[in-house]
């Protein structure tokens, strides 16, 4: 697809054009809770979250360089949404479908790992049965992801076969670049990846002439991007390759090492909630018997009730079995069905976890232990 170049100072103009095309713009902003009323002086932990940018003067709140605390999954798969509305009168039951009200949206600022996460979710939500709620919203959204120039200590996207400037899953990738790599990044290489991305760029450029000149030709930067990408990859602290981890996980299933590695897990659901690829949900009815909604809410395999049978038997009665399910499902089961691991290496779970339980180090230690007793076996032979 086509490549463009956009100078950093024209980014705001691009956003304004998106807004004037009455597209919904969602981007990361620093949310200091309870800004409203006279509570601004409360010292709140600020969070970088994806929020809708309603108008032009909110554009200044957009945060480009920081990493969001929650993934953008919530745009397509909200923490709770009604799937049907029922009214149950003496005269009978009437069920109304709920339309996900998917609006034409531009999601700016997802990271390449988040974007790849959407493509993973899309595979599951269209596996034999199409989940209209996720798929309609994804279809109406153009994902513009932002390449990573300074990955965090907890990032490990290269371990699962991705990269800080990976294109798969995004419709358009903005990569911050600098001209002949003096350090200040003052422009973006704009790579259009999917027809949906192209449609957006055409619709934006097509209308007004003034925008045409800020999207100049970008092929010249493609070379520099490849080199820049490798440089960033080198800087990453965590680079262990998890390509062949499936065999190790199968081998280690009943190994006590998994229990000792996850001993400190407290069984909360933070890791699943902040994760861009966790998709487990619960279905409950809310409201009275006469009228109410059937809700689809986020759920987590770390909760005790997740697999508890009606008869009281719980196959995963101990916490380490639930942690094991999390790793197995992400790096082994999902990969067997859908070719890629259900983990994009964004590291949000290790940062958000109250005891910093880290999927990367658990799998790293499993791999090392597996290698040790592998060559121990070879020595014995």
């Amino acid at each position, binding site marked *: 697809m086509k490549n463009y170049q956009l100078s950093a100072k024209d980014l705001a103009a691009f956003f304004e054009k998106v807004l004037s095309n009455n597209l919904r713009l969602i981007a990361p902003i620093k949310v200091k809770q309870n800004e409203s009323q006279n509570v601004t002086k409360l010292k709140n932990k600020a969070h970088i979250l994806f929020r809708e940018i309603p108008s032009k003067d909110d554009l200044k709140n957009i945060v480009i360089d920081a990493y969001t605390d929650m993934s953008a999954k919530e745009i397509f798969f909200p923490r709770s949404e009604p799937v049907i509305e029922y009214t149950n009168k003496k005269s009978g039951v009437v069920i109304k479908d709920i339309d996900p009200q998917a609006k034409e949206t531009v999601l700016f600022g997802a990271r390449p790992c988040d974007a790849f996460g959407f493509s993973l979710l899309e595979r599951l939500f269209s596996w034999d049965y199409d989940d209209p709620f996720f798929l309609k919203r994804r279809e109406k959204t153009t994902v513009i992801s932002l390449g990573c120039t300074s990955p965090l200590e907890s990032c490990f996207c290269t371990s699962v076969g991705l990269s800080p400037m990976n294109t798969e899953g995004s419709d358009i990738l903005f990569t911050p670049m600098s001209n002949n790599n003096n350090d200040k990044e003052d422009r973006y290489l704009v790579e259009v990846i999917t027809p949906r991305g192209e449609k957006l760029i055409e619709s934006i450029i097509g209308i007004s002439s003034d925008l045409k000149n800020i999207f100049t030709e970008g092929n010249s930067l493609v070379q520099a991007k490849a080199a820049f990408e490798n440089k960033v990859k080198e800087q990453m602290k965590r680079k262990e390759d998890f390509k062949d981890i499936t065999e190790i996980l199968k081998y280690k299933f009943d190994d006590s090492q998994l229990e000792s590695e996850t001993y400190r897990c407290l069984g909360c659901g933070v890791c699943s909630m902040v994760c861009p690829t966790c998709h487990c949900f619960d279905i*409950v009815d809310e409201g009275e018997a006469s009228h109410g909604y059937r809700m689809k809410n986020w759920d987590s395999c770390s909760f005790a009730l997740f697999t508890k049978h009606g008869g009281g038997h719980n196959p995963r009665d101990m916490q380490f079995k639930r942690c094991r399910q999390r790793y197995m499902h992400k790096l082994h089961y999902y990969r067997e069905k859908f070719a890629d691991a259900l983990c994009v290496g964004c590291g949000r779970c290790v940062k958000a976890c109250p005891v910093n339980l880290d999927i990367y180090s658990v799998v790293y230690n499993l791999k090392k232990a597996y290698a040790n007793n592998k060559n121990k076996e070879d020595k014995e032979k």
Partner: protein
Amino acid sequence: MTTTNINYSDLQQEIRDLSKDLLESKKVNIVIGYGAGPLNEKPIPTFITNAADVDRLLYNEHCYHNLSVYLTKAEIRPKAPWAIVVKGCDARSIVGLVVENQIKREDVFTIGMPCNGVKIEGNLPSKCVNCTVKNPANVSKVVSSIKIDSSAIIEQHPLHQDMEMLNKMSAEERFQFWKNEFDRCIRCYACRQICPHCFCNTCIAEKSTPQWISTTPGSRGNFAWNAIRAFHLVGRCVECMECSRSCPMGIRLDLLNHYLAEEVKNSYNFISGMDFEQKPPLTTYNLKDNQDFIK
């Protein structure tokens, strides 16, 4: 001699030596302490069962977890007797657990650490600013001879300014404040799972017959969940503030906990986790309790 600076490597070595002989002498089966974590300057809870691994234990000002939450976990409870590294605030949780008959006093060997405030995300949390238990009480052994000079206690609690602001608000505004806070709740239950005093086998939020709390993370369910969780900890919470630290959405649980703790102190002159003999206030009564609000 009282001091305000702590030599953490001394304390760390003392923990290791103490743990070594506790394990070797079979006085405890497991030592619950802090160890190196995946993110370099953030230690993690670590569990040592054989004496050879005591060198994995470390101690520095980033050891902010309240480890007593593990004593009631299914995997660790049967491993009693335990040894556990506790700061002053954590020791209050141990007292709370013993007073509520969750653990027996003789089953837990508490390694008391003098503490002059931990660092969370690089800064001193509000609970440490005027901490009164810098030198841990009710512990089996205080690790080092040094005493922390806790004379310079600032009278005003750091949350005082926020509490004042909330009290000045009208009921309507306060409701909106708490509604905005609880609306962000995603029901990950980290506040419950990390609290040493939330040890119920089946939490009321997990009961469905009847469904007292709706599990949908909407305004109504979240308000009920957060209110009921806070109320179930009245007179029991030791303000270790682990819940507000681990809340991924930054909900100001510390304000709610602190308010309730102040109310309990003013009404029943009770501070939780300070005395093995004192029962939590809502499990006892006094004939002369205040009842002027009752018609």
